[in-house]
């Protein structure tokens, strides 16, 4: 039997007991069917929460994972908010939207994606470093999460950039059902040390030692402004979530006997009883009140705002500068003049200035706001998300569009979700930019247009830049956005000047939308064919307009949306209702594409029948050899042939 360490003060014990009692209440409520979803309890691990979350300052922050109740209570003290949250009430921390794994309150954030929070925490901590406010952060992971790549991308960066973040790895020797020896190779702390991160170690069976080591590590991170890694050995006494436990009963019982609170209960039953009863009263009172409360109204959660495109048109002005020059001018202006601006990506330091030179000279102007990263797309996007949560306006550059898949988790599970799942307490105004598109012979992994995978991400605006609008004006609007924006640029378009290739006898106009729709139509005659194309494809289609007329006898009107995540269905519809013919030309492949989405929306609204053709890339990787690349990506010959076959 273990002897209680006299130094552990009763306040700490009460705090740990409180966490345990709240979680036991959750299990009870769950078994009574009062709790929707799932709970991961940290029964047995409470002192880890208290040692770190409990010893941080208010200005510090915490990012946590699925097993976050203890961290939450230790850091915020908000038991009532947590209870209401899990009971699904409007007064819950996040209005019942996030529940157990998605909490947000006073610099506390948790998310249920293993590993994904680590770069976000790093970005948040980087923000504090840039603000020079002396705040640090802690991110909690489990030992199972040592398998996630985003963790190592981030460890590399926080060490290199000296970001004041502590990674606390709670090693309970299991990942869900899997014992550690099945999944983990090598040594845990050696991982951190390999990155040059100072590693600490402790366990929950000696809380007072853990508390002091934790404090030491916290001080180290704060004073040195460097990262740290803390391995906490511990054991969860309950199942992974609710009843899913296949662990050896004897093993579990051994740990139950060893558990500090259980020992305390045995050794100081009267104290235990007093504390226990007081906490019971507190929790039961809360539950009783909360049970009578109402749940969040759907209208408070989501408002269906239908956008209507403007129907006022004005001529597009041409600009005798290349798109990339204008982009570079925009970023130079922002990095110099707006403190919130951060530019981050691979190879972006000057004189190189990024693979396509958009970042040229930025690092000369403001070295401390321009971050050239290792090859780490998950970390680039995650750090950007963290900066955005911390009040910055990060512009993340993904060197080639194809690589955006490596940032997808950060876009879909973090940037997209934060605002709503935290019940609108936070915004994540991150901007991720990347060049897509073929016609440069870069071959299969550097040429594809993946735009279809990037529309339909809730609360994320996706723009497909074109050569018809001044990118500075577009980006000014992007800068104002309060939610995530993806900007898909185009490699070939970078070298093009703005609106300089409008063929004779056509007029080029834009509407008054925030992200203007451009249309190019015959100067006088009524069009007889509606074409929709965007991004790099729009520039290409413009070069085909005259040939389309000459050879098909149809007078084309080209509509070029830029905000492809919210297509101008009404504008396309009114054109198609006049022409009766619609061609959608996309650079990505057709199945499940943007054209399909546009057509579905048109079909829902239209009262007239019209003929339709989609023209898209063939469903194979883009070949590097020019002759084949030209065939795979819709070219002039194919476009004209398909129009003839479909409409004449």
């Amino acid at each position: 039997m273990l002897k209680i360490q006299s130094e552990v003060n009763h306040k700490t014990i009460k705090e740990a007991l409180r966490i345990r009692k709240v979680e036991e209440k959750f299990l009870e409520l769950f078994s009574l069917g009062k709790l929707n979803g799932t709970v991961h309890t940290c029964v047995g691990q409470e002192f880890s929460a208290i040692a770190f979350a409990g010893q941080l300052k208010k200005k510090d922050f915490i990012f946590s994972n699925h097993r976050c109740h203890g961290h939450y209570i230790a850091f915020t003290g908000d038991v009532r908010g947590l209870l209401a949250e899990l009971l699904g009430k409007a007064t819950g921390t996040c209005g019942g939207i996030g529940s157990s794994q998605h909490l947000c309150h006073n610099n506390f954030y948790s998310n249920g994606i293993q590993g994904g929070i680590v770069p976000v925490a790093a970005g948040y901590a980087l923000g504090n470093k840039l603000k020079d406010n002396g705040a640090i952060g802690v991110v909690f992971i489990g030992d199972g999460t040592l398998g996630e790549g985003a963790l190592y991308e981030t460890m590399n960066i926080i060490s290199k950039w000296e970001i004041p973040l502590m990674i606390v790895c709670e090693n309970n020797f299991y990942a869900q059902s899997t014992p550690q020896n099945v999944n983990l190779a090598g040594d845990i702390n050696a991982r951190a040390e390999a990155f040059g991160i100072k590693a600490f170690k402790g366990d929950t069976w000696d809380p007072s030692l853990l508390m002091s080591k934790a404090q030491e590590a916290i001080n180290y991170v704060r004073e040195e402004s460097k990262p740290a890694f803390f391995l906490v050995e511990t054991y969860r006494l309950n199942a992974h979530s609710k009843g899913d436990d296949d662990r050896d009963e004897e093993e579990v019982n051994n740990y139950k006997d060893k558990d500090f609170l259980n020992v305390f209960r045995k050794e100081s039953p009267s104290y235990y009883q007093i504390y226990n009863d007081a906490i019971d009263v507190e929790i039961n009172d809360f539950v009783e009140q909360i049970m009578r409360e109402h749940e969040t109204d759907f209208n408070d959660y989501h408002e269906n705002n239908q956008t209507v495109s403007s129907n006022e048109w004005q001529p597009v002005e041409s600009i005798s500068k290349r798109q990339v020059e204008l982009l570079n001018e925009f970023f130079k202006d922002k990095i110099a003049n707006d403190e919130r601006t951060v530019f981050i990506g691979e190879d972006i330091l000057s004189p190189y200035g990024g693979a396509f030179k958009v970042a040229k000279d930025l690092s000369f102007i403001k070295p401390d706001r321009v971050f050239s990263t290792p090859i780490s797309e998950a970390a680039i996007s995650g750090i950007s998300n963290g900066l955005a949560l911390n009040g910055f306006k990060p512009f993340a550059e993904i060197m080639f569009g194809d690589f955006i898949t490596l940032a997808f988790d950060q876009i879909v599970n973090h940037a997209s979700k934060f605002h709503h799942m935290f019940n609108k307490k936070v915004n994540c105004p991150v901007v991720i930019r990347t060049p897509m598109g073929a016609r440069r012979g870069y071959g299969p992994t550097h040429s594809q247009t993946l735009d279809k995978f990037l529309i339909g991400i809730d609360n994320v605006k996706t723009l497909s830049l074109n050569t018809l609008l001044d990118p500075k004006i577009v980006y000014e609007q992007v800068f104002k956005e309060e939610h995530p924006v993806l900007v898909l640029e185009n490699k070939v378009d970078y070298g093009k000047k703005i609106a300089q290739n409008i063929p004779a006898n056509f007029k080029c106009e834009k509407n008054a939308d925030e992200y203007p729709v451009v249309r190019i139509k015959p100067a006088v005659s009524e069009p007889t064919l509606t074409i929709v194309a965007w991004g790099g494809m729009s520039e290409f289609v413009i070069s085909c307009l005259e040939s389309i007329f000459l050879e098909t006898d149809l007078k084309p009107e080209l509509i070029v949306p830029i905000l492809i995540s919210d297509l101008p269905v009404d504008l396309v519809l009114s054109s198609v209702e006049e022409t009766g013919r619609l061609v959608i030309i996309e650079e990505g492949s057709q199945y499940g594409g943007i054209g399909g989405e546009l057509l579905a929306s048109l079909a829902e609204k239209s009262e007239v029948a019209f003929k339709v053709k989609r023209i898209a890339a063939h469903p194979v990787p883009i070949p590097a050899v020019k002759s084949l690349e030209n065939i795979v990506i819709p070219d002039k010959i194919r476009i004209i042939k398909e129009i003839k076959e479909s409409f004449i």
Partner: protein
Amino acid sequence: MALVQEIAVPLIAVNDTTLTIVEMNFSSGQQVRKGDTVITFETSKTTYAVEAEAEGYIEYLCELNKDYEVNDIVVKIFSSVEEVKTTPTKKASINGSAAKKQVAAAKTERQWSGETVFSHKALELIEQKQLNKEVFHGYDFVGKDDVNIYLGLPIETKQVKQKGLAKAHDNQPKVIAVDTAKAAQQKLSSNKKREISYLSDVQAPGLTSTLYTAVEVDNIFVNLNQSLKTLKNSLLPIVIYETGRLLKKYPSLNGYFAGDSIAIFNDVKVGFAIDIEKGLKVLGLEQTNKLTVPEIEERILSLSNDYIDDKLKIEDLSDITFTITDLSGLDVTFFKPLVNMQNSAILGIGAIDTKLQRCTLALTFDHRVTEGKLVGEFLTELKKRIESYRPKGIVPKNVTCFKCLKDLAEDTSGIGFVKCITPQGEEAYICQSCIAGF
């Protein structure tokens, strides 16, 4: 030896119907090269320079700092110097424009001042029909069907649009929110709403087309006015008369599109549009094809009186098989009428151009019921018939009674004027009333 280029006054801004010539860079007879700026126009907002499209010899048909109407030809460039008339024609703007309108008689709007782009198929057809491409001056794009329309041939391009069946009779316009800070909102009157739905029925599918023809009317009223009691100097009675008879020969213009069939009326009941403060109405003349011109005049008058007195009967307004709209009283020379519900065509009568003694008839028709060629024939025949009312032989111009200044055309005596010598000893004409008294 050829005309290489003609430069007409371009339409640059809708409001600028005349443009000023502010620069003439050469003088008539001089040689110009491709790309030389040869003339510059000024609108209310901007200037617009035109270049020679090919090498040649220039002839200016205009004067510096003078105004010319849109579409007036102001410059010609010829391939040889002999073709240039050395004395440039200095036409007043109005004459120029009228001359141009004559050429454009059968044309739709042309507003493009740049070069015209022809589709491959259009070029084939132009060549096949041996047309001069110049006739498409003012078009931005000319496709095969623009040529077909010009030739009065049926449109070939497949029509792909179809109104959804369920909504076929539901022409409810989209309601657009009005920003009342920027524009005052006026409720549509029920009359206006009815008018819209009447016109939408045929026009909304967008399958109508309009053909125009110019009718020579010089001295026509010398004869006509003799058969008219009140509606002197009006073409309406004889246009109704001739149309009534022609519709029997062209039954497709006396019917309407019925969804999956075409309905042809048994009777001919031509209606004429009237709008004098009581809303636009079309009043029909029963059995038009059997009425004489005086009877038609009489019906027009009595129907108009009933309209003003609110005494119209339901029969006056219903089952009208063809409509005529006469805007000649408004000095409107050229317009495109809109086909009424359950009609397949409408005829518009423009004002007489007094200088040219011409009047434009416009016929808009429903392509779903009939087609350009047939309508073209109808219109040509109608034009010939109307023109046949002009006096045969030469009618001296400017025959005016020197006493009362009445024109021969206005004379209703049926006798004509008498040649005489004035007290000043000059040769002149005197009318029956002035010589013999009333």
